[in-house]
């Protein structure tokens, strides 16, 4: 019997049965069953302690793809659960490599189809290289199967480069810059040619305009994607007043799927987990619009940075 419980580990059930049969003693049988139950108790308690959660989204995102050493940036863990929850203490945050945690902020956003939780970490990279983040995860019981599961986000890496100029960037970044520049030039040429063709076709179809008529509007097809946001951003950048900021908020809310007269919470609900970057931009816009006077200039700068990143389509792997 002692050999069956030696340091090798717990005996398997078939072996146990054989040993029990060999001994044929009901006292031994009771003792073995008792010890086995005791051994299983922590596991059962652990699974009972897990919450039952429908987790439909668990993402890890950064607001920067490339940072400099010492520069702070934000990493956001987004979780969507179908349940109406006030807290999500079960969420295990990612571990950081080559970065230091400066603080975190939790936000709970009730949604029609459950609850969204946003945990935003403010971090700073240590040295040149890569700042990496292990996946965030939650241990929970899947209500569909009744089994405990570990839901994980993807891992995240952010490049830490020196300096801010092209010379400082590594050769990979230089190549990417050149490739992007070539692509941009080709796109502009195609757009100009398309616009000229469109204008020539319109001139052929329409009678000659009167001498005092207004000049024709530029063809809308020549504009790039995301035009309303770009236009509102350009207007806000040029004027920087409350009216242009209101217009910009309205455009962002509309993009999120919220109608006129909606609030930030409405826009977040309409957006769901489709576009976390847009949610962040809207949050910054809220601070820039309603924040106290002394906080508005930095908030406005943050908004321009966030919007430039957003319309520039920057994403992090």
């Amino acid at each position, binding site marked *: 019997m002692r050999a069956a419980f030696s340091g090798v580990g717990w005996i398997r059930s078939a072996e146990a049965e054989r040993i029990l049969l060999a001994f044929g003693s009901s006292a031994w049988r009771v003792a073995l069953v008792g010890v086995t139950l005791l051994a299983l108790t922590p596991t059962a308690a652990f699974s009972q302690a897990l919450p039952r959660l429908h987790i439909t989204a668990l993402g890890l995102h950064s607001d920067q793809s490339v940072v400099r050493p010492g520069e702070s940036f934000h990493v956001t863990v987004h979780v969507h659960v179908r349940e109406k929850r006030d807290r999500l203490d079960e969420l295990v945050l990612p571990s950081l490599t080559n970065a230091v945690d400066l603080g975190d902020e939790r936000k709970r956003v009730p949604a029609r189809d459950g609850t969204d939780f946003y945990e935003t970490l403010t971090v700073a990279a240590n040295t040149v290289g890569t700042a990496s983040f292990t996946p965030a995860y939650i241990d929970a019981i899947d209500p569909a199967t009744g089994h405990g599961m570990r839901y994980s986000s993807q891992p995240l890496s952010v490049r830490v480069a020196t300096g801010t100029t092209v010379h400082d960037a590594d050769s990979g970044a230089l190549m990417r810059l050149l490739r992007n520049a070539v692509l941009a030039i080709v796109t502009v040429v195609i757009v100009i040619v398309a616009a000229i063709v469109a204008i020539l076709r319109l001139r052929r179809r329409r009678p000659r305009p009167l001498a005092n008529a207004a000049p024709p509007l530029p063809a809308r097809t020549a504009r790039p994607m995301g035009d309303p946001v770009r236009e509102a951003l350009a207007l806000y950048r040029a004027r920087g007043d409350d009216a242009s900021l209101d217009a910009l908020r309205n455009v962002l809310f509309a993009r999120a799927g919220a109608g006129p*007269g909606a609030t930030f919470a409405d826009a977040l609900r309409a957006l769901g987990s489709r576009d976390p970057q847009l949610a962040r931009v809207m949050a910054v816009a809220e601070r820039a*619009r*309603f924040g106290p006077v002394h906080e508005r200039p930095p908030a406005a700068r943050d908004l321009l940075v966030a919007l430039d990143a957003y319309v520039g389509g920057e994403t992090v792997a």
Partner: protein
Amino acid sequence: MIKPEAVREALSRTIVGQTEVVDALVMALLADGHVLLEGMPGVAKTLACRALAAAVGGIFKRVQFTPDLLPSDIVGTRIFDQRSGEFVTVRGPLFANIVLADEINRAPAKVQSALLEGMQERRATIGPDTLALPRPFAVLATMNPFDADGTYALPLAQLDRFLLNVRVGYPSREDERTIVDRFSAATAEPERDVATLADVERWQADVRAVHLNERVRDYAVDLVRATRGAKYVASGASPRAALALTILARARAYLDGRSFAVPDDVRELAPGVLRHRVAFDYRLAIDGGDGDAVLAEIVAGVPAP
């Protein structure tokens, strides 16, 4: 430095579910206001009030309102001391930081007035002495909306003194199971001294410094004005409602860790601020409507900035 979030968390650990009630109590404390809790018996109204008082380390007094209650039972009285040959003032349960007025509508108007005067003036008069009530001071009153026999309905002017009216509903099935598991073996002991009264006074000062943008202020005013003359409404909310809405919006922002209020703060709090300040006319009862649904429609009809 302790934050009000700590009080909210302590309350959440004591009270199962009822997050709206917990949030409302903490926000009202931050806004230095009084709360009227409406709900069926046994839904943790009293426990929530006790837990709040325990969490901030304040003096808690409970008064069970009954038809034979007298104003002196609340405010206090003067008793002749035979040894000194003088009358001495004995302070009533109103002299506490958190006063729970249980079933406030069971006492006659004279008693209600004595309490509500203390709520408004923050002081009480006992014989020739006018005494200031302790700081911070909050009255949390409960009312059962269904069991109306033998009750004295509070007039609108007195209801207006309450910053918030919170409907305490039944817990969810999951929460109810937790309640049974947790409290069938032992009584609920609230967490004590999570913060101090000095912390509460500091928070209240901080809340008053939270920025309120003029468009958020205008939104609050527009919401209150929209209640006047609306369908099914006999009398709309007073300007005091706009004051309550803006101070509570600041408190909500502060509780969320923001230095500024946003339109969402105002909109989320509007039902609780307006519910007891709006009188509905007979047509609502004839049509089988619900006051909260009317208010929700009014709020939805005012575009947010």
